[in-house]
């Protein structure tokens, strides 16, 4: 059995070098665009410059006349008759009758060089009839809004709503009116956030090859290659088993690489070009225009609070657009909205709304940052009004283990109390602040996902172990899997090699998403190791002629136990490996399941800012992340998740946004104007890892990857309010907006 207390662990909780470190500091690691093959063609995609337009005609004759141009595909090359989410994916891959957003793919071309493919793409003539468009979520719900697609709503939507409302969410508990009646103050405000992009530095890239026999190969940067397989084959009408997908190293994803964009185009082009491999690498502007940003949100929140800071009731009505397809994370936003609080009466209402923007993809704790911004801003406003300490109010109302959550079911073991206590104890809270400086505090929450998980593990002839997993390593997860395998097998960390294997080599795996890799793949790795231990004990028992149950595994060896203890010398894993051919053949372990026992994670952030009152620019002075990890397998990579999440949230709070012009065209599709934080914008990001073990994981792991992006949005807004006296309810808090608000407050 796995050890379950920290002081018995030898490897878990230490900070070994990651197994892929050498490859990644020497340039040897191969990412999506780093592949080549004999006969390689390069693909380029023609994209709509219009937010909404009927495609009248596509004429590729000039492109095809260029020497070296091998194939052009349009929607006519795709199968028809798809429905539901499969149709959405196909339509997003390549526009059909209408282009639905600026950047929507309308044709693709393959040629013998990337330069030639780009030249050819420019020669493909597309005739459009421009249609009315809408990009703002509130405008998209207004009665006169152009209808983006009739009949797109699912069964959750009550009658009488605009056809652009495609999903309706409503849940809650308790007597709302009674709750508000018990409050001393009831406040209600509207909050807005703009769409932000995941901003991974590696643009999407793939190489697809498919012959006339329908058998295909794909190399792709993705968070989940089985998702790529499923989606590509759905969109192209192929059998899943006929496409083998090999994941490259992945240059960041944050949820944005859990779905398909141009991947099916490489296969379609390859098939049309006689089976030659086709590589497509997106430009940065294609990434920003056509891959998943997250939703923009418009949110009404109402909270009732007593004078001593008890929250008596709350309601949240969220509207989010996630582009021209269903899928804005309004449901998840609502699930997270009040998760940090124990509130007797809550109501949640959500609208998933279509708009002429790119199809939203998941982005780190989808929905949670917007929800946190709205709820945690309002709680802060009410604390200020009542003269209460915002951290104490959070302690007073904190959600508790084994009690009903804001979203319905009871929580299991959660670590919010411990997180808040660690925050209160941190020295950053007692640093004195100067003029124009302010401190902001906010909490956040995210779930942890199980999901389809397959792991296999094989013993080598020398007693070293190979682990095959299906969740791509974005942030050091090879290290944590190797650590958990080594811990369970009680062998050295260096004796384990973890490989992320292609779709043909394992059962289905969901992507590295939902903060699941270390939890789910980790749990399956431990299970696989345990099944291998059972087999190794059997081999030892057979040699010794005793019952397998009379053998125990410790220190990387089989030991006779019970009445036989000490009777035979232990058999090490190396001896078992060396002998396995003669003791029954190869030894391997494997595990397939949807792991249960997920562990949610709460975090609390504290930020100090300084605002230049003459320019409205906000500077982050210091930043603290406190979050429950359950147990940190590799603490350095847990800290890295906290720090990275915090900085993405800071970017969203201050500068990142999708800016559309009157024509619905994205105005800032380059990193110069889509302003992710740069090194000089930031201080060090202090972290505290709280460890309240998740009883559902053998080592206590919770999902840690996502929670950290939620608190920064409200924490920064709360700090700005403390520094300036001005409450910003619409992110990002750009200097322009903040200066204008400061001026208005002085004049008012």
């Amino acid at each position, binding site marked *: 059995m796995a050890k379950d207390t920290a002081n018995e662990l030898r490897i878990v909780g230490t900070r070994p070098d990651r197994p892929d470190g050498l490859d990644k500091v020497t340039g040897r690691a191969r990412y999506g665009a780093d592949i080549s093959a004999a006969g390689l063609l390069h693909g380029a995609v023609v994209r709509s410059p219009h937010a909404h337009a009927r495609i009248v005609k596509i004429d590729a004759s000039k492109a095809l006349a260029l020497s070296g141009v091998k194939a052009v595909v349009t929607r006519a090359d795709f199968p028809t008759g798809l429905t539901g989410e499969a149709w959405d994916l196909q339509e997003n891959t390549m526009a059909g009758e209408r282009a639905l957003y600026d950047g929507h793919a309308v044709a693709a071309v393959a040629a013998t060089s990337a330069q030639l493919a780009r030249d050819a793409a420019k020669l493909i003539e597309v005739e459009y009839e421009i249609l009315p468009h809408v990009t703002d979520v509130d405008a998209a719900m207004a009665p006169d809004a152009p209808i983006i697609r009739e009949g797109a709503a699912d069964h959750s939507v009550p009658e009488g709503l605009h056809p652009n409302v495609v999903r309706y969410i409503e849940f809650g508990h308790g007597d709302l009116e009674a709750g508000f009646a018990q409050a001393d103050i009831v406040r209600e405000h509207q909050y807005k956030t703009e769409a932000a992009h995941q901003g991974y530095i590696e643009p999407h890239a793939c190489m697809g090859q498919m012959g006339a026999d329908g058998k295909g190969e794909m190399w792709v940067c993705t968070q989940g290659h089985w998702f790529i397989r499923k989606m590509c084959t759905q969109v192209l009408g192929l059998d899943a088993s006929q496409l083998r997908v090999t994941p490259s190293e992945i240059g960041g994803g944050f949820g944005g690489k859990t779905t398909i964009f141009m991947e099916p185009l490489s296969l379609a082009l390859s098939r049309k070009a006689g089976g030659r491999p086709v590589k497509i690498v997106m430009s940065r502007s294609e990434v920003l225009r056509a891959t998943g940003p997250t939703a923009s949100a418009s949110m009404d929140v109402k909270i009732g609070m007593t004078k001593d800071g008890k929250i008596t009731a709350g309601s949240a009505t969220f509207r989010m657009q996630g582009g021209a397809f269903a899928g804005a994370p309004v449901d998840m936003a609502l699930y997270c909205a009040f998760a940090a609080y124990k509130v007797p009466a809550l109501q949640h209402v959500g609208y998933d709304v279509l708009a002429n923007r790119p199809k939203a993809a998941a982005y780190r704790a989808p929905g949670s940052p917007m929800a946190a911004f709205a709820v945690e801003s309002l709680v802060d406003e009410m604390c200020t009004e009542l003269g209460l300490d915002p951290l104490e109010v959070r302690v007073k109302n904190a959600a508790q283990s084994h009690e009903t959550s804001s979203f319905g079911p009871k929580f299991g073991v959660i670590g919010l109390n411990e997180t808040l206590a660690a925050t209160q104890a941190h020295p950053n809270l007692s640093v004195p602040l100067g003029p124009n400086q302010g401190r902001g505090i906010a909490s956040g929450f995210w779930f942890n996902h199980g999901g389809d998980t397959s792991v296999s593990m094989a013993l080598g002839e020398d007693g070293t172990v190979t682990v095959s997993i299906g969740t791509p390593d974005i942030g050091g997860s090879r290290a944590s899997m190797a650590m958990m395998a080594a811990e369970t097998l009680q062998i050295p960390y260096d004796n384990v090699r973890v490989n992320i294997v292609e779709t043909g080599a394992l059962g289905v795996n969901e992507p590295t998403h939902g903060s699941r890799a270390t939890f789910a793949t980790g749990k399956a790795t431990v299970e696989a190791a345990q099944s291998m231990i059972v087999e190794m004990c059997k081999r030892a028992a057979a040699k010794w002629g005793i019952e397998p149950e009379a053998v125990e595994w410790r220190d990387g060896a089989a030991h006779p136990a019970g009445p036989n203890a000490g009777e035979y010398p232990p058999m090490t894993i190396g001896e078992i490996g060396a002998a396995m051919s003669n003791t029954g053949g190869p030894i391997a372990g494997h595990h397939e399941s949807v792991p249960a026992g997920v562990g949610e994670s709460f975090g609390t952030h504290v930020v100090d800012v300084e605002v230049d009152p003459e320019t409205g620019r906000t500077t982050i002075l210091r930043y603290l992340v406190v979050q429950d990890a359950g147990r940190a397998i590799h603490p350095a990579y847990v800290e890295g998740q906290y720090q990275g999440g915090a900085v993405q949230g800071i970017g969203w709070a201050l500068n990142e946004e999708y800016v559309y012009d009157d024509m619905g065209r994205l105005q800032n599709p380059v990193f110069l104007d889509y302003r992710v934080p740069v090194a*000089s914008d930031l201080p060090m990001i202090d972290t505290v890892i709280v460890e309240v073990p998740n009883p559902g994981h053998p080592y206590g792991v919770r999902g840690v990857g996502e929670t950290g992006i939620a608190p920064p949005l409200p924490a920064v807004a709360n700090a700005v309010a403390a520094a300036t006296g001005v409450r910003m309810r619409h992110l990002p808090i750009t200097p322009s907006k903040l200066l*204008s608000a400061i001026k208005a407050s002085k004049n008012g």
Partner: protein
Amino acid sequence: MKYHCPKTFADAAQIAADATGVIRYLAGGTDVLVQMRAGMVTPDDMIDLKHIPGVKEIVQNADGSWTIGVAVAGAELGAHAGFCADYPGIVEGLELVGSTQVQGRATLTGNLCNGSPAADSVPAMIAAGAVAHVVGPNGARDVAVADIPVGPGKTSLTKGELISAFTIPARGAQGGDAYLRFTPRTEMDIAVVGCAVNLTLDGDRVASARVAMGAVAPTVIVMDQAADAIIGTTLDPQALDTMATIVSGAVKPISDKRGTAEFRTDIAGVLAKRAAKIAYDRAKGTK
């Protein structure tokens, strides 16, 4: 696209004059390569100026003035102690163009000829009274840097003309300059507003001054009235406020993705005050 490496400016001008299609000059390349990859421009002829002798030189002339070659990159200008001491404002303007990496390539010439009203190195060049030496099929002429840009993306240079070098006047005693810009991030942005101030002192009083503002009009603009407001003063708070009011009253910015007209108007005055103070301190030798 044809790639040319002329060895003289006359040859470069001739190639440009003979060209029938789209031409681009290549100094640092940090604008033109971006435009090429984005499909905004596809040159038929690319004329690389870096093989012409002298284009990488920074020379102080006998009269104290400076001659700067057209291919001198930001990192090279920033490493030149003598020039940095005389014109820190020009250096800081050029050094704000892009990242450390971009500094390895970006030039004053390219920043000027790209024609962006937000070009960071242009206000300080104009405030300093810099002159561009222009060669062309019809011979050479000198043009004030202020007269090169005529609108966004447009210059007064005619077909076949190109800049061969800049001359920046002698610093003289008790002079200083400064450039400040506002960007949402600390680095890597295009100026929302930029402001350069170049001044000389007579004792504690401002003897002469030039104020140039970027990103508040179709071209960088010189604000004589703003300069007048500080000439003769010790740059006391009242003089600074007067200058700021004049600046904010005179700018004619647009609203775009980088900032609203109202915001630009507000911070133009703020930056002018701050830049003037830095220039003043530099002229005094206190900073």
